[in-house]
């Protein structure tokens, strides 16, 4: 898997180099244009964000509901990834005044890391205090896509035009998460006191690839003979399945780490505890011990969404 990832990175770097070198050779032909852009993508990788949602539900059933007779609250919410920061490079070949083709490379990255703490307790003749802490809880997502496109230009002035287009290609994405948690419980009774610390680190990552496509609508404005800017909106489609990755768990009190590799899927956990029940869907690539029977469905990394970007273009 690592070899494969390394190969993908090398391939992407080679494409960028090729496009840059190619553009130098093309200077003066007036048929080529290079474009650089960056912006924001609004996405909703539901399955990936289940990592946060599940943790929220766990806290609710294992902590908040259990200790509902105690005073306390949680500070902060678990992060979700709803947007990424994309940046891209594109080289375009003008076939006619209205029609052009392009080849581009677009990358994106997003990381959300947060510290959370919930503290619940009571105090009378005896006292009890429970603290659950995540420091940090992190979600990370990155990737790139190589896409070829076709663009149709509609002039609305001498230096201004509107453009519609479509592109399709291949995308690769990496994600990771990390939860460094601790749970301390203390009891102070009339006869006895007790303190316990539980905790651990749970980490996982995945790499997927698949078909990507986008429909583009954009506004171009030339600021000189060979130089201009554009505002581009795009509806993107990209769904990746059969994502493989590794995982790692370390627990207090157990010196050895547990690590594994596996295909990501969604596990359905029907939690029954004395004080209530909960159904939790949680993404995982760990199917060891007794967990395989909880496999509910495949994990889909859905990077589809809406992109808004601002870029510059240079005619060669």
């Amino acid at each position, binding site marked *: 898997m690592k070899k494969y990832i390394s190969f993908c990175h090398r391939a992407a770097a080679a494409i960028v180099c090729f496009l840059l070198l190619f553009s130098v050779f093309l200077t003066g032909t007036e048929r080529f244009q290079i474009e650089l852009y960056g912006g924001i993508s609004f996405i909703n990788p539901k399955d990936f964000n289940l990592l946060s949602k599940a943790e929220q539900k766990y806290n609710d059933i294992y902590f908040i509901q259990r200790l509902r007779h105690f005073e306390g609250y949680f500070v902060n919410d678990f992060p979700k990834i709803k947007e990424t920061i994309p940046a891209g490079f594109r080289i375009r070949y003008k076939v006619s005044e209205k029609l052009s083709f392009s080849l581009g490379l677009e990358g994106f990255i997003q990381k959300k890391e947060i510290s959370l703490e919930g503290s619940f307790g009571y105090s009378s003749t005896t006292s009890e205090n429970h603290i659950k802490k995540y420091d940090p809880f992190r979600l990370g997502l990155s990737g790139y896509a190589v896409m070829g496109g076709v663009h149709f230009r509609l002039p609305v002035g001498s230096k201004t035009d509107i453009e519609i287009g479509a592109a399709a290609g291949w995308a690769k994405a990496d994600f990771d998460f990390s939860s460094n948690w601790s749970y301390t*419980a203390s009891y102070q009774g009339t006869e006895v006191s007790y303190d316990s610390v*539980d905790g651990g680190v749970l980490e996982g990552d995945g790499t997927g690839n698949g078909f990507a496509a986008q429909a583009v609508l954009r506004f171009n404005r030339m600021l000189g003979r060979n130089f201009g800017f554009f505002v581009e909106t795009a509806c993107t489609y990209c769904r990746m399945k059969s994502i493989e990755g590794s995982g790692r768990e370390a627990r207090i009190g157990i010196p050895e780490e547990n690590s594994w590799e596996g295909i990501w899927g969604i596990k359905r956990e029907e939690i029954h505890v004395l004080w209530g029940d909960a159904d939790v869907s949680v993404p995982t690539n760990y199917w060891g011990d007794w967990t395989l029977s909880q496999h509910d469905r495949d994990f889909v990394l859905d990077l589809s969404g809406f992109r808004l970007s601002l870029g510059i273009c240079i005619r060669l």
Partner: protein
Amino acid sequence: MILEEKMKKVIPTLILSVWIIFWVGAANSLMAQSQPEAGFCFIEENDFHFHTNSYFNRLALRSSQTRIWRVYQPADDDPASKPLFVFFNGGPGGATSAGLFSAYTGRNAVSVDPHTSEGSIIINPHNWTRIGNLLHIDSRNAGFSYSLMGNPQDDTLRQAEWDAQNFNPFIDAADFVRVLLRFLADHPQLQQNPVVLVVESYGGIRSLVMLHLLLFYQDYGNGKALYQDPALVHEIQEHYNTIFPKYADQTVPPSVIAGQFSHQVLIQPAITRYFQRLVAVRMLEAPGSILDQLAEETGVPYIRYRDQPWARENHTPYNIMNNIYDYLDIIGRDPYIYSKPEGFFNDYFDAAGELLTHYDALCLMTGVDVTGIPELYASSRQRAYKIKFLEDYASQMSFSALMGPAPKASDLNSFLFPCAEEDMASVFGALQPWDRYFLDLNYDVSTAFSLNMAVMEGYDVQYAYSEIYGEMFLENVAFVETFITNAAYDIVVYCPSLPDALAYHTSILNSSVFDPAGPSQAERPGQILLDYKQGIVPGSSVTSRTIRFPRYTNSGHAVTMTEPGEILDDVISWLQDTDFFLKQQSLLHQNYRHKGVKK
């Protein structure tokens, strides 16, 4: 030709040698079964977890290494054909050595002079070796058992050992299953013999968890049960591969497993402790109860909990029981046997414990020269620990997990400054301050059962409150014939409450009824009739079961101590009535046939 001649001479000699070696080996093996044994069973670190269907939210724990003390006494005759009776006490943290081992079950017993409270060793006229082989086991860090860790001298690390990784009803029962299976594996002639658990007090919880682990063992590795212990499941499967070769590497049904673990004897047991207490305090506070009788007898009125000025509105059965304990304390009666003066029960344990920590007495009781046990020597106990705090004890202790009332200062003193360790030290060497040769009741263990990480994180393992133990017991009883004592003078485990307490498990039972008259012809009658819900127990079509429930009119908590002959006679009759000896022959015959061994 010459070679052929030589071969003709050599081959018979060779065959004879092999034959002799084989039979010497077999004889050695048989001798091993027929000689008493005492020593330790080493249990390695084991990973296990508690979970509620969410793997990464499990409480992952690793138990520490421990050396569990066990004493084997073979049956009087033909041990290889006799069942194995496995004895243990409760506490939790109570020593079997000072309990059932000393109290009239083995070849010898400890007799305590009621005037001087001094113990002496006598030949037990009611020894259970008449009917089988005996194995007495001390639980982790109780009796002679002790545990091992990296740096026991580090107070913080050592204190952390008293937590859920080492002390909870499941790892405790798993320890016992491991000891039992390893003992059987080490004694091939006994390996397929029927096993009967004979337990007292908290031992009821331990035995029901043990039997559940053995009968429904796959649930403890496939995520179905709260407790998951894959290494234990593997070890149990290995045992069944030997005992039930027809099911090698397959799930053995509980009905088949019950062929080996078919009977249990429970002496004043905790089973479904919360409901037992709930019903007990209701019965004990009812008008005309034994407390009113005691009030009449002593002239000291019993003030019911609700009439106490300090009574709490939201009280638990445990609050009411403490009120009863306080009353018994005022009138100077022992809650373990209220016909006797206060301290009667604990004095026996103390006396037995003191006796056993004398080298000569230990040899006599076990029938073994214990100087041959390497793990007893201080030199092999560099990593050993047995107690949690070295000072400021009383302020650090909680007693909520003890079966009986909280100990008095004098009990704590005997715990802090154990007697007769010097005698053992003179033979085996002086121990580190955190180690002890013997503890008759380890209060630190009791505390750890009550207050630990699993309890604090909300796992349903607290035996004083959880309903799961009662349910597990009823599932076991569907397969296992059960004998429970109903002692007249025991307040700590007030057994008349048991039938109604079991009836609270409405998810499994339609009814649980006490029948004081049955079975017919019984010298000490009494039974509990259980009516099961249809199809409720996995692998069983049971609809009704009968628990033998004889009344012991002169006994308290330790029935074998006060009516040793009566209980042994009753157990023998009950075993006969429930076809135990027939089943035993059948199991032995079946396994010998499997192994191709002529008996």
